[in-house]
């Protein structure tokens, strides 16, 4: 019964989305205000029906309703409650439903917080999002229906993929989808601006918090995925340049370029057409990611069930959405007048260089991801592109990018005298170099050229940010009060930039100094790694809610002092009989100790993989700061003040431009 209700709600949501996508556009065209205003109702309707559908699917999982094919394929009567709730997005169909629900949620948010926008612009934006919803929802209903019912319900389900039975995975996909789908907002705003021919600073300012929020969510998703790969795959790596990882990384790179380019458009009116293009590209890459993951064109760890009709449908959706918007861009962008002038050495110049580097990096990742496909399509042989390519291409691009990240905030808009800049900054760079040489020497007792380069850039970024903050308050009487007065978007920027520095320090030290060993240990035997002694004490049987496990007890000491006890497991899940390695990790600020249990080697001995990863946790701290900075920037009062000012102006005018009945929605 729940399946039928869910199915029905899904159909109604599609109809609502259709109305949301079409009616306001006609209204704008004909100048019928009430038709435009209908967007606010239909978007709420779409969200409501999708919410009902989502609740129905969750209910089917909670009650073990195995007559629903999707539940039977992704759950089991022994599956713990937490994973039954998460299993809703554990497969292709359910994750699409979550996508659609989030898209409707973002659209609803846009409609509630659109007080600062002229009604025509808001109506167009919501309509464009409605059209995207139509695409996603019809895809769900016609090719991937989560509510398909089995004629004969099986006695028990086939269980959730054991790889996905993990707390990290409860959070990773929703965060990632929030980012993917969130990029639809700046996209829709850009399309609305192109349709109306209004590409001014107000458009950019209105786009900024949405783009930044989506960017932060996307990075949260990527970081959680990386963290999850680090501790569940049991191979110690945290980034594999897997096609699916690239699929999430590419829109993030585009979004990073977008939020910086938006800043220049907002403040100086610069790069308008470029910014619009980035907004389109960022969302297009989200859709491309969906295509790559779900069509089976590239093989990857994230093996979704693949199906030719699905691939064809997503490609059709991709061509319509992206092709249509790029055609609109080609038609409208030429009429946009050029922005304000600036010289090469200026804030705009740095932002432009930053954008170029990010886009080149993006193109390199795109090339590496699609290259096997292109070569195959041209009949030039079958190849695969691995981490060596990406590392070689990506790292050299990141070093100048980080340098510019530090430099940018110190620059003034429009024009800076180069001589003044070098005179002000050479000692900062020198100090960064000193720190960069000292840190690995103190930590590890040695260093390399690559480590020095990476660390110099990271410390440069930190010192430059601190200098900038100091310069902002140095001439004030009450410095603490002055610090508090600095706007949230300013703090957000520096928190994110310093997060990047912390991340780069972590990655650099880790990649140069990590040590790993595959060892053969019998009970009571020991192995030494990076000054730590690992003793395999025993191997024991354990029993989980839906798996059996072998657990090794590895006691770690250093100079005779106990450090920790690691308990890595090898699990065999009952239903899918898939052996899973569950690594054990001990984390401090200085290093991670990591042990994964391998295969029995006969004679009571086991293969164990041991890692000493210096500064590993800095990766997660840095990522956390980058995300936090994004959300701080979104909270800036400037964006809200703007909406309030506009609202008052609208109230004062209170003529045909305001729509009755929606003012109360604007907080």
């Amino acid at each position: 019964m729940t399946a039928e209700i869910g199915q029905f709600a899904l159909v109604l949501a599609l109809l609502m989305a259709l109305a949301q996508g079409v009616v306001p556009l006609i209204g704008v065209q004909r100048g019928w205000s009430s038709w435009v205003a209908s967007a606010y109702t239909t978007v709420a309707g779409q969200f409501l029906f999708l919410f009902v559908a989502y609740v129905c699917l969750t209910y089917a999982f909670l009650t073990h309703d195995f007559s629903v094919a999707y539940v039977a394929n992704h759950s089991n009567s022994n599956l713990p409650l937490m994973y039954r709730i998460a299993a809703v997005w554990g497969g292709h169909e359910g994750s699409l439903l979550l996508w659609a629900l989030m898209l409707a949620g973002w659209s609803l948010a846009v409609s509630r917080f659109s007080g600062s926008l002229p009604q025509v612009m808001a109506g167009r934006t919501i309509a464009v999002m409605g059209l995207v919803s139509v695409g996603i929802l019809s895809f769900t209903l016609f090719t991937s229906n989560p509510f398909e019912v089995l004629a004969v319900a099986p006695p028990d389900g086939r269980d959730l993929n054991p790889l996905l039975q993990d707390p990290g995975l409860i959070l990773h996909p929703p965060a990632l989808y929030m980012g993917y789908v969130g990029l639809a907002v700046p996209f829709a705003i850009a399309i609305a601006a192109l349709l109306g021919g209004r590409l001014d600073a107000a458009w950019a300012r209105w786009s900024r918090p949405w783009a930044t929020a989506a960017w932060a969510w996307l990075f949260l998703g990527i970081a959680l995925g990386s963290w999850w790969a680090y501790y569940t795959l049991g191979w110690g790596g945290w980034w594999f340049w897997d096609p699916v990882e690239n699929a999430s990384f590419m829109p993030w790179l585009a979004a990073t370029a977008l939020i910086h380019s938006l800043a220049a458009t907002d403040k100086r009116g610069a790069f308008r057409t470029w910014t619009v293009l980035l907004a389109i590209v960022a969302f297009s890459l989200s859709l491309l990611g969906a295509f790559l993951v779900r069509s089976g064109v590239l093989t990857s760890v994230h093996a979704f069930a693949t199906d030719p009709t699905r691939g064809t449908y997503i490609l059709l959706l991709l061509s319509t959405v992206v092709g249509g918007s790029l055609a609109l861009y080609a038609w409208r962008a030429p009429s946009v007048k050029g922005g304000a002038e600036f010289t090469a050495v200026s804030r705009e110049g740095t932002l432009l260089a930053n954008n170029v580097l990010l886009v080149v990096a993006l193109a390199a990742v795109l090339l590496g991801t699609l290259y096997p496909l292109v070569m195959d399509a041209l009949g030039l042989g079958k190849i695969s592109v691995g981490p060596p390519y990406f590392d070689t291409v990506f790292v050299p691009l990141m070093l100048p990018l980080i340098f510019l990240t530090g430099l940018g905030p110190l620059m003034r808009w429009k024009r800076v005298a180069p001589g003044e800049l070098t005179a002000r900054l050479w000692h900062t760079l020198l100090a960064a170099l000193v720190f960069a040489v000292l840190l690995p020497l103190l930590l590890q007792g040695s260093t390399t050229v690559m480590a020095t380069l990476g660390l110099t850039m990271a410390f440069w970024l930190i010192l430059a940010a601190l200098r900038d903050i100091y310069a902002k308050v140095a001439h004030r009487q009450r410095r603490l009060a002055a610090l508090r007065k600095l706007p949230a978007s300013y703090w957000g920027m520096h928190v994110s930039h310093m997060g990047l520095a912390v991340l780069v320090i972590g990655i650099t030290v880790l990649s140069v100094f990590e040590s790993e060993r595959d060892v053969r240990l019998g009970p009571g035997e020991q192995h030494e790694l990076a000054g730590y002694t690992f003793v395999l004490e025993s191997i024991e049987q354990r029993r989980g809610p839906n798996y059996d496990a072998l657990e090794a007890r590895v006691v770690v000491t250093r100079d005779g002092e106990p450090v920790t006890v690691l308990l890595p497991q090898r699990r065999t899940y009952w239903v899918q009989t898939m052996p899973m390695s569950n690594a054990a990790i001990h984390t401090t600020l200085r290093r991670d100790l990591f042990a994964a249990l391998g295969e029995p080697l006969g004679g009571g001995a086991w293969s164990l993989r041991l890692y000493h990863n210096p500064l590993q946790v800095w990766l997660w701290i840095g990522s956390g700061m980058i995300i936090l900075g994004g959300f701080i920037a979104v909270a800036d009062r400037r964006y809200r003040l703007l909406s309030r000012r506009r609202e008052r102006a609208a109230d004062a005018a209170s003529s045909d431009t305001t729509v009755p009945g929606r003012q109360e929605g604007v907080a």
Partner: protein
Amino acid sequence: MKRASLRYLLPLAGFMVIVGFLLVGLGLNPRLIPSPLIDRPVPVFTLPMLEDTTREVSQASLEGEVSLVNVWASWCVSCRQEHPVLMQLAHEHGIPIHGINYKDRRSDALEYLRHGGNPFRWNGHDLDGRVGIDWGVYGTPETFVVDRQGRIRYKHTGPISPRQAREELLPVIERLRGETT
């Protein structure tokens, strides 16, 4: 003015090229289209053995029994995911599995097998990927079922899940073992 507007068409043109490739790629999808090698004899090859460089393996080493040929690499994440399934097929079901170690450093490959266990009877070390091309390898991992006469009878692209091993590969192997000719 005309030239300036053409510049704005570039993104669209670039995108059309990408869509063209994706469309072709969809048709080439290795999971959907059976390998042209199906029912043909295994491509002729000679490779140094991974475990012992002084010895060589060739297509002749595959005749005589129904076996699996798995193309893998230590740098391939999906292979790591698939590895336990291969271990199970080899040790619990006694299926002979031969490996083609694809574009991999010998030391990395051997360490991979030392840690994860070795399900393979032997491995051919295909350092430059030439043999992989002859076999039509699109990406690792790929798994071929070879019959007694040394003909390829079935191909699986991507990591084998425990379910696929049970429901696809094992029945095919059973059927081929039952063939008399």
